[in-house]
């Protein structure tokens, strides 16, 4: 592990709403994620895990505080710059898969490459390679409606890794899957972390899943409660 963290949060707060309905979801989060780490984020419901993941995924901005990605301040970037950052460095996996309907697995996986302006051939080769990595090479022409939940989540992971991102963010990737499928997904993430060198951040409620991670970050009431290192070491 390198010394410089790839991700740093400093005093990050996030307020939702305004006036009487205002609610502070994050109350000053400090967090460092090392390059190449496999981090599980845990904590009670409503403790701010998803809020933090969205900020880390450049999908949302902190109300105050600093977010450094590879030493660069993200909180000062505009919408389009954040989009380009997502395109270049990040892969996101959601609890609800979020695949495009009526679109084949391969086309779903190719989509980020399309936005990168890759040509058709490159897209196809990289797309098939990513599907191969998640074990769905033979299912490339199936639409989400023709795939099981576990398969859909694996397509979503293939889509997140097809651009060879530095960081893979997964918000409850196994939340909609049974334990057997969940273990498959965890093994896949572990493999990507170990063999492809992707930094993995994953929100989970289940200790069994968290056990796959190297570092566990505990959230409580919009703050980082504690960080357990080397769970797997």
């Amino acid at each position, binding site marked *: 592990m390198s010394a410089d963290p790839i991700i740093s949060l400093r005093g990050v707060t996030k307020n939702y709403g305004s006036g009487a309905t205002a609610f502070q979801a994050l109350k000053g989060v400090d967090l460092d994620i090392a390059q190449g780490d496999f981090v599980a984020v845990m904590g009670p419901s409503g403790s701010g895990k998803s809020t933090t993941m969205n900020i880390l995924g450049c999908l949302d901005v902190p109300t105050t505080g600093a977010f450094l990605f590879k030493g660069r301040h993200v909180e000062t970037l505009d919408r389009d710059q954040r989009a380009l950052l*997502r395109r270049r460095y990040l892969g996101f996996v*959601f609890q609800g898969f979020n*695949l495009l309907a009526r679109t084949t697995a391969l086309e779903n996986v190719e989509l980020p490459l399309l936005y990168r*302006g890759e040509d058709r051939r490159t897209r196809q080769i990289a797309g098939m390679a990513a599907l191969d990595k998640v074990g769905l090479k033979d299912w490339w022409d199936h639409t989400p409606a023709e795939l099981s939940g576990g398969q859909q989540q694996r397509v979503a992971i293939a889509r997140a890794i097809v651009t060879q991102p530095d960081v893979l963010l997964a918000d409850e990737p196994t939340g909609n899957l049974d334990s057997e499928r969940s273990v498959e997904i965890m093994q896949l993430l572990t493999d990507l972390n170990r063999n492809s060198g992707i930094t993995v951040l994953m929100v989970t409620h289940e200790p069994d899943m968290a056990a796959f991670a190297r570092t566990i970050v505990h959230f409580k009431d919009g703050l980082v409660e504690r960080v357990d290192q080397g769970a797997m070491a």
Partner: protein
Amino acid sequence: MILGTTVVLALRAINRHKLRSFLTTLGIIIGVAAVVTMVTLGNGATAAVREQISSLGANVLQLRPGQGFGRGGGGPRPPDFKEQDLTAIANQLTGVRAVAPIVQSSGTAIYEGNNWSTSVYGTTSAYSEVQQWKVADGRLFMPEEEEAGSPVCIIGNTVRNNLFQRADPVGKRMRIKGVSCQVIGVLTTRGQGGFGDQDDVVVMPIKFVQRRFTGDRDISQIMVAVDDAYDTSVVQASLEQLMRERRKIKPGADDNFNVFDTKQISDTLTGTTTILTQIVGTVAAISLLVGGIGIMNIMLVSVTERTREIGIRLAIGAVASEVLTQFLVEAIVLSCLGGLIGLVLALVASIAIAPLMQVPFIFNIQVNLIAFAFSAAIGVIFGYFPARRAAALNPIDALRHE
């Protein structure tokens, strides 16, 4: 980002949602088809009216006894015209291109057991000059036939079809009102006009009609063709003056004849059809606009429906302008496609309906281009605003959208 990519995405989206795409396009298809069909048929109708009017003869003054339509009332019938009136008009008026007398009668024409009731016009060959009527087959009257009032006739197409069917009538002898005459020519078809079937006629030398049918040398109507270089109203005024003198009407007394300028009818009718075309065109244009609003509506709904999709695209790294371009391209492709289909439909409909309405089909490139450009513009305008709304969404809010 390369435009080609957005086009690919837009085409994929259209292809994957065929029903939605079809519904979006439908408004434009109907709008464009309606506008183009209406205007094409309207132009055809105007052309048909012009054609009929030109059949009256351009710049022709019709001189009739009496005070004109619907006036005159009691008193003795004003006298008809004499041959001397004809020569006076031809010799004393300036700006007269041709003068033709008409004596009208009607009766049954018979040929080999076929009979047909028709109008008989007695006139001179000047009539063809005045009315711009041409002989399709055969010839006009010879001067000596006119002079002698020979039993020869030129027949219209309706008479020809009813008496002779497929046979060539030129040179045949037929009977008209019990008198035998030789067919020397067939008139060119002029069609069903606003003035009745203009081909249902037999034209004969005036002297023949006077001698055998009307029994006197009176002329019931004189047609005066005005030279193009002269002002019709000036010629009309001098014609009226001349006739007052010849018919010895005291100053202050009413005319006992009337002069009718056919150009008046032509102007009125052309004006009416033009206004009609404009009204119909406007109604059709409104339907095109409604079609455009339909596109906007469906684009708006589709953006709402597709909010999650937009969220996904933004989350995996699409820039807002790329999402905007994609929606815009979708709208443009759909409305251009709708425009094209609309034009084809209009073409088919116009070609099918024109003969039923008895108007010519006239392809007007301008109307087609304008309607197409308008539908494309609608796509751009009405596609842009919902697309902008879509692109302005925060990815997280878009993803959370159910």
